[in-house]
């Protein structure tokens, strides 16, 4: 199922400036076929800009974007294989939901009307009400239905579920997983609800301040960090020389999150009377994107699996152990 052939998306040295603001700063990564990617990061990190650049809706300042081997800009061959569901999609004023769903098959060759009908029922979407009169959640449901039923080979969901209730979000996750299993395709999902989606993701791209901070297999990231809690002196002795993600403490008690503990190291820590707790994907990303003091002090340890060569080498080169520890520990 995993396509190891040429990547669906290849981005190299991509930069986007809006006047003096650098939204995307020399980013390189690849997206491989038939995987579900999470594009994660804080507000204003550059997630939407990346999606707009990949779908030809923005022009790059410099660098190259290749989608299905070609530039997406004004390129019908590429764009007819792409579906981009935006956070706030605008529709013509007079449109009703059934108009949207009736016009979708004109754009998407793989459109499955029966699947769309089933989703309409699942989401209880009123079809004959003007789009303008729909609630925020119902409006999101229209986008989600189009995104799923279009079965585009490359589908982007940019924060697709603003206003969707918990039941509707669960329906979205379940239908996405079911349909993806039957019809494998490449999905790029941007979201803030990391805990909710983390088990759906195969690969994670974390964007922070216009750069790629992590480019890694989701399951490798999970369990890649541990929080060590105990007497400050014991904790300090144990974490000395390790990659520290964050540091906290009260009185004589310290809590430090570090990366890459092997099983035997975990035994050593426990034997030293330290408490170890796993760090979820969401906690890990929150800690890694909380206090980035100064550019270039990324986590050298979260280099992608060889795909972000340029970025990771730069980060690695600029970072030495002491400065990194300082940068990450400013929060404590």
């Amino acid at each position: 199922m995993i396509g190891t052939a040429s990547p669906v998306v290849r981005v190299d040295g991509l930069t986007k400036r809006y006047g003096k603001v650098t939204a995307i700063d020399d980013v390189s990564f690849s997206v491989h076929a038939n995987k579900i990617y999470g594009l994660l990061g804080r507000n204003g990190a550059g997630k939407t800009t990346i999606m707009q650049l990949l779908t030809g809706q923005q022009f790059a300042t410099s660098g190259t974007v290749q989608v299905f081997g070609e530039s997406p800009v004004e390129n019908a061959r590429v764009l007819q294989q792409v579906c981009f569901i935006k956070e706030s999609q605008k529709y013509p004023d007079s449109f009703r939901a059934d108009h949207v769903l009736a016009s979708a098959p004109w754009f998407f060759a793989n459109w499955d009307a029966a699947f769309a009908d089933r989703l309409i029922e699942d989401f209880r979407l009123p079809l004959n009400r003007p789009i303008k009169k729909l609630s925020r959640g119902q409006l999101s449901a229209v986008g989600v239905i189009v995104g799923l039923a279009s079965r585009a080979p490359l589908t982007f969901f940019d924060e697709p579920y603003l206003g969707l209730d918990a039941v509707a979000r669960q329906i979205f996750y379940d239908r996405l997983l079911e349909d993806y299993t039957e019809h494998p395709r490449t999905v790029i999902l941007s979201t803030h609800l990391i805990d909710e989606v983390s088990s759906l993701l195969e690969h994670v791209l974390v964007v922070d301040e216009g750069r790629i901070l992590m480019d890694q297999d989701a399951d490798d990231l999970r369990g890649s960090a541990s929080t060590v809690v105990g007497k400050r002196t014991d904790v300090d002795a144990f974490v000395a020389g390790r990659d520290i993600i964050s540091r906290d403490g009260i009185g004589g008690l310290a809590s430090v999150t570090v990366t890459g503990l092997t099983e035997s190291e975990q035994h050593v820590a426990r034997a030293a009377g330290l408490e170890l707790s796993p760090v979820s994907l969401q906690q890990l990303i929150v800690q890694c994107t909380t206090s980035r003091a100064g550019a270039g002090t990324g986590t050298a340890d979260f280099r992608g699996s060889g795909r972000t060569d340029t970025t990771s080498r730069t980060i690695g080169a600029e970072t030495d152990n002491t400065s990194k520890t300082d940068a990450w520990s400013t929060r404590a």
Partner: protein
Amino acid sequence: MIDSGKPIFLQIAEQIENDILDGAIAEESPVPSTNEFAAFYRINPATAGKGVNRLVDDGILYKRRGIGMFVATGARARLIGARTEQFRAKFVAPLLGEAAKLGITPEQVAEMVRDTPTETHIQEEAIRS
């Protein structure tokens, strides 16, 4: 069901191992498909596949072409062997470490283990009273 701080593929592998250990899945019988695991645990099918493949690499499961994954003969015995080693490292070693801190000798620990009622004992007591 899925613990967020641990690689999911390991949890899937462990779940299958537990089912083999307690006899829920017998040797030479089929295990659920990758897609069934994905749908049940609401996880990415590739992740579920990684867990299953790990057990194939370990010789616990084997693939019958076009049919699916099956539990290998002798899988249970091999799992018991591997898990016993893990048991020593994960439970016995820390137990003896803590005991040493309190000045309890290994012999005294063994005595305590013998004297401590097991879960079945506790249940029997509860039924009697």
